[in-house]
């Protein structure tokens, strides 16, 4: 680096040539060429790339956030597979599959909403978003139904009526598996599906806001495609989390016919 650079003048700055000299006003607001571009960005392309990367960084954080819980799951399942198998058999495979389908359809809707936003069809964007919100609500309703059933079966570890079913206790005792691990499955199940549910709710609220913004901006002719694209990324991520949660929670040696009733 040194030999050639010594010949160059130190700290050379070539100043704004032509097109960029308009940036030079005092309060950073002089580059008002495009009302869709925030003042810190030079142009729409830079803004687009930045907001996308921002969301991708956030999703990387989210992967590790859920990852900590997957780590706990992995450790406890690896060290006591029997307890996890027995506990998992109390979940309803069909309802879980239906919910996976519901989220996959919603992901399709979002993908189509992004497409329409790129094409500038605000009305269709909002139609797809509305569809997603409804599907998200269906997902939550099904989840709520499952959780209620779990409560009646005494499977919510945070509730007073939690009780490990007798036959599960016997089987674990036979195989020298600590019964606490059965409870830990349910702790992780509710923690992870609960956290996932919170993400779904946040997503629905967000889409509600996005719908409002899209409607406003369709009238004023401002751009909204970045917003739809970024919130869409978030929603696909929420879907991906569930894609892993479903087999890990519901499909450990499932029993035909769904929930194990007693």
């Amino acid at each position: 680096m040194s030999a050639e650079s010594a010949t160059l003048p130190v700290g050379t700055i070539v100043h704004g040539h032509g097109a960029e000299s308009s940036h030079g006003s005092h309060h950073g607001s002089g580059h008002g060429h495009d009302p869709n571009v925030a003042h810190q960005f030079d142009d729409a392309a830079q803004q687009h790339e930045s907001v996308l990367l921002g969301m991708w960084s956030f999703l990387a954080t989210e992967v590790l956030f859920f990852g900590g819980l997957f780590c706990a799951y992995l450790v406890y399942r690896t060290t006591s597979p029997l307890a996890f198998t027995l506990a998992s058999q109390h979940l309803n495979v069909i309802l879980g599959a239906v919910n996976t389908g519901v989220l996959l359809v919603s992901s399709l809707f979002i993908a189509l909403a992004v497409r329409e936003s790129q094409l500038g069809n605000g009305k269709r964007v909002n139609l797809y978003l509305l569809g997603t919100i409804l599907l998200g609500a269906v997902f939550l309703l099904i989840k709520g139904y499952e959780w209620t059933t779990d409560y009646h079966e005494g499977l919510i570890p945070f509730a007073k009526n939690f009780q490990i079913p007798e036959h599960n206790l016997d089987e674990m005792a036979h195989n020298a598996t600590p019964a606490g691990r059965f409870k830990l499955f349910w702790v992780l199940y509710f923690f992870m599906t609960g956290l996932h549910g919170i993400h779904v709710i946040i997503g629905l609220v967000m889409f509600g806001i996005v719908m409002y913004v899209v409607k406003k901006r369709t009238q004023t002719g401002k751009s909204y495609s970045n917003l739809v694209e970024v919130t869409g990324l978030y929603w696909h991520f929420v879907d991906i989390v569930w894609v892993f949660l479903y087999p890990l929670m519901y499909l450990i040696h499932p029993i035909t016919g769904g929930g194990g009733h007693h």
Partner: protein
Amino acid sequence: MSTHVHSSSTAHSVAPNSSSDEPLNYLTNGHTVKSWLLTLDHKRIALLYLAGVVFFFLVGGVMASVIRMELMTPGGDVLYSPDAYNRVFTVHGVVMIFFFLVPSVPGVLGNFLLPLMIGARDLAFPKLNLLSWYIYIFGGVSALLIVLLGGIDTGWTFYAPFSTTFSNSLVVPAAIAVFITGFSSILTGLNFVVTTHTMRAPGMTWGRLPLFVWAIYATSLIMVLGTPVLAVAIALIGVERAFGVGIFDPALGGDPILFQHLFWFYSHPAVYIMLLPGMGVINEIIPCFARRPIFGYKAMAGAMLGIAVLGFVVWGHHMFVSGQSMYAGLVFSFLTFFVAVPSGIKVFNWTSTMYKGSVNFDTPMLYAIAFIGLFTIGGVTGLMLASLGVDVHLHDTYFVVAHFHYVMVGGTVTAFLGGMHFWWPKMTGRMYPEIWGKLSAIVVFIGFNLTFFPQFLLGYLGMPRRYYEYPGEFQVLNVLSSAGASILAFGFLMPIVYFALSLKFSPKAGPNPWRATGLEWETSSPPPTENFASTPVITTEPYNYSPEDSERAPWDPFGSTTPEEVAHVG
């Protein structure tokens, strides 16, 4: 000399600074409280962070003073109970780590310098930046309220099952405060990562980025990828404590070592969140005051990324004496030794940069040299602790305490102070009193070593950490340490006082008082709100220093340089 003339004239053409009608700079552009508390300017947010970290540094410092007072005598006499002592060192640790060290260099210098160094008007997400600060302050104030309401006694590590089952203190509120503060860190990291990728001015290629930017980038990766795991670990502690479902309780089927895995997956890399930005500061100071291009630019940038990545696979070295498997211990020990490679590259390259340079011992350089020495001691003792057999003896003793203070205080705090002196003229437009600066660097160096070197000996002799009473034979070394702490405290208070006074009494700094390279020196001091009058275009390599332009003779400790060689240096 040509450097001086050229760069200052350039700066004048960037932002004309004629004294007749002073153009607005970021400090004078708005005087209301609102213009500060709702600012989206990264430079003002940096100053908000400065206020925050100084405040929390003082809080943590008061706690440190109480600890050192308590430990002056073998008996417990300053604090009324061992339990109170537990609360004091926990507050010291939590405040210093989460509310001072982690946000210090990134929050203040990173925020201020990153857009300036890459030639941008601001960070990619200014509103998110302000939100980060508010989350940080909210978390910090909550933590202080918790202290006032009774505090916590788990140590900053929140180890289960003590934190989940046995502690009688406010673990859940404290966990929530740390959880919330984590998001400040995540959002800052996210903002910096995106900014580095998308906001660079034309010509500012990755190979021309100042190494401070590389450091901030590497740090941000850790913030984004590590912090969420801490959040989950802490959330699980909260759930376990609130419901007692047995997540980490062996009696109920849980595994406390799992908590340690999750906790250290973040908290070892967090060491590098605290240290890497400090290294970045040193990377800027040393070439400037040695008047030499940094030795091995690519190796330096690579070493920082290497540290960030390797730092994620060594966490188990905190768990050698837990129930972790011996094989895992072997792997972790082996990998930990690997971290010494990039760290060593950095130390050697800093010293190589100085060699045959024209070394100027201004305050920032004194702090930087102190950093190299203290960090080296901290790093090498880290290798001792990474050795399985040695760690059995030294685990949880004062040796560990001394080791991480050499890295965190001797490293990060020293670098932070060096950086504050280096960029103070840029941030405020004023110089600081050089004589007092030099004095503070020397007092900090002496006070620091006197405080923490005896702790290596104490630990080696077997004094465990986190006890408020100890056998009489340890008293001499403890008194030495406490005496050093009072000198150190004095050294830390001095800059706060003279920095404050300099705002009124010190001479104005030009755009580039150090004749430094780097975009931040090409704009006026203090910079205008939009940073640069027009988007800069970069055509030169970084660290264009040469010893010949200095008035001083090159530093040549071995006397091996002939005049011809000097001429070819740089």
